[in-house]
C-alpha cells in the first residue's frame, strides 16, 4: 500500500510540473509594458513554490516507499521523534525568505503601477461603471472633462455621465460604449462607479482595479500590442453581472485618431 501511494504521488508531481514546464498551462498573451514584469513575477513564484512542492512531494513518496506499513509489521508509530522544532524553523525560514524575495523583486513592478504618477502626456479617459455596462468619456480637443450632474444622468437618452453639452468643457466631450487607446503610449483611466462596486479587469493588459462609487481611482498602463480585448467586471454586482463587459481596442496612432473623429461626429 505504501509503495502504491509513493508511485501515485510521484506521478502526480511529475505530471503537474510537466504541464507548467512545457507551457501547456501558461499565461495568455501580454499586451502591456508592465505585464511583462508581472509575468516575470509569476514565473519566479512558480519556480520558488515549485521547488518546495517537488521536494516535499518526493520526500513524502520516499518515506512512504521505505517506511510504509508491511504485512506482519509490528513497528510502533512515532510522531516527530526528537521533536518538530527543527522542521518548523526550516519551514519558517524557507517560506519567509521566499516571500521576502518575491516582495523585493516585485516591488518595482507594483511601484511602477501604483506609486508612480502617470506621465502628463498620457491619454486620459473617464470610465463609469453602472449595472450592467461600462461607459467611457474622452475630454475632446480642449482636454477638459466637463462637470458631471448626477440629476442629468439618463440612460434612456444616452446621457450616461450626466453632462450638459451646453456647458464649457462638456461641449466637445466624447462618450462611448467601447474604449480605444493608441498603442505604445501611456494611458490613464479614471475609474468611478455610479451605483455599487464593480471591477475593471483586462486579462491581456494585466490590469485589475475595483471601481468604487464616489472615488475616482486612476489606473495607468502602456498597451504594447494592437488588438481588441475584453473588459470584464470582476466584482459580483447583481443579476446582470455575467453580462457586464465592454471592449478595449488598442489601435495604431492613425487608426485611433480616425476612430476618435468618428465618435466625435456621433455625439
Amino acid at each position, binding site marked *: 500500500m505504501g509503495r502504491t501511494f509513493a508511485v501515485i504521488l510521484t506521478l502526480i508531481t511529475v505530471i503537474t510540473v510537466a504541464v507548467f514546464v512545457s507551457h501547456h498551462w501558461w499565461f495568455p498573451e501580454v499586451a502591456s509594458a508592465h505585464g511583462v514584469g508581472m509575468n516575470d513575477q509569476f514565473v519566479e513564484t512558480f519556480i520558488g513554490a515549485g521547488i518546495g512542492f517537488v521536494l516535499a512531494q518526493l520526500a513524502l513518496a520516499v518515506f512512504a516507499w521505505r517506511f510504509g506499513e508491511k504485512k506482519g509489521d509490528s513497528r510502533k508509530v512515532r510522531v516527530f521523534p526528537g521533536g518538530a522544532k527543527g522542521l518548523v524553523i526550516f519551514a519558517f525560514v524557507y517560506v519567509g525568505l521566499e516571500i521576502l524575495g518575491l516582495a523585493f523583486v516585485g516591488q518595482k513592478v507594483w511601484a511602477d503601477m501604483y506609486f508612480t504618477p502617470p506621465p502628463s502626456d498620457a491619454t486620459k479617459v473617464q470610465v463609469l461603471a*453602472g*449595472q*450592467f*455596462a461600462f461607459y467611457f468619456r474622452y475630454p475632446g480637443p480642449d482636454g477638459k472633462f466637463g462637470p458631471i450632474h448626477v440629476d442629468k444622468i439618463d*440612460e*434612456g*437618452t*444616452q446621457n*450616461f455621465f450626466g453632462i450638459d453639452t451646453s456647458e464649457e468643457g462638456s461641449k466637445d466631450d466624447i462618450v*462611448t*460604449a*467601447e474604449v480605444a487607446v493608441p498603442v505604445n503610449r501611456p494611458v490613464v483611466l479614471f475609474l468611478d462607479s455610479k451605483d455599487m462596486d464593480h471591477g475593471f479587469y483586462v486579462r491581456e493588459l494585466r490590469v485589475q482595479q475595483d471601481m468604487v462609487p464616489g472615488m475616482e481611482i486612476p489606473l495607468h498602463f502602456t498597451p504594447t500590442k494592437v488588438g481588441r480585448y475584453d473588459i470584464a467586471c470582476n466584482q459580483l454586482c*447583481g*443579476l*446582470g453581472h455575467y*453580462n*457586464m*463587459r*465592454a*471592449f478595449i481596442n488598442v489601435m495604431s496612432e492613425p487608426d485611433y485618431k480616425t476612430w476618435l473623429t468618428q465618435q466625435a461626429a*456621433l*455625439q
Partner: protein
Amino acid sequence: MTTRGKFTLLLASLAMVALSALLVSEPVSAAGEGKVTGTIKLDGTAPHQKPIDMSKEPSCAAQHSTPITTETVMGSNGGLQNVVIYISEGLSGAAATAVASQPQEINQKGCQYLPHVVAINPNEDMKVLNSDQTSHNIHPQPKNNHEWNKSQPPGAAPFDVKWEAEEVAIPVKCNIHPWMRGYIAVVKGPYAVSDDKGNFTLNNVPPGSYTLTAWQETYGTQTQKVTVAAGKPATADFTYKAK
C-alpha cells in the same frame, strides 16, 4: 304546470341569459360611434439622436445594420411618431370603463422595446415577450401602479400583466441593458399611438364633446377640445415646437 308551459319558461330564461351575456360582452356598441383622426407634427428640427452602441451584446448588435436610436422619432413630413392620444375629459358611462379586448404587447427584440410606446386601458392584458438570444430584465417604474421587475431568459415563455391605475406614462427600463427604454401609457377609454407619419385614429368614440390629450416623451402633453358627431369623423391635429 303543463309540459308545454315548462318548456316556454325554460326557453324564456335561456333567452334572457343569452341577452344579458350579449349586453355584458359589448360595453361599447359600434353602432353610431364616431372617431377622431389627426396628425402630430413637430415644428422645427428634432434633437440630435446618438446611435446606440450595442457592442457588449453582439446578438443584438447583429440585428441592426444601421445603429438604432431611441427617443423622439421624426417621421416623414415632420410627423411625430410614438405620441399617445387619449380622451382626458368628457368620457362617461360604459365608454369610460370599457376595456379594450385586443391585448397589447411589448416585445424585447434587438435589445429595444417594440413598440417603443404602448397605450393600454386599465386591466387590459399586456403580453411581454423576449425574442432575443439574451436575457432581459424588464423593469417598469410606475408611480401610481405596483412596481415590479422580471427576468426573461432567451426562449422563456411570454407572460401577461395588467395595470390597474391610469398613468401617463410609465417608463420601462431593462436592468441588464441600460440603453433600453420604453413607455406604457395607461389611459381610460379609446386610445391611439401615432404611426411613423404622425397619423392617428381614435376609434369607438361615442358622440359628445371631449378634451383630447397628446403625450410625447420629450415634449410632454398638449390638449384640445373636440366634438364628435355620430358617423362623422372629427379631426384634431397637434403641433409640438422643437426645443
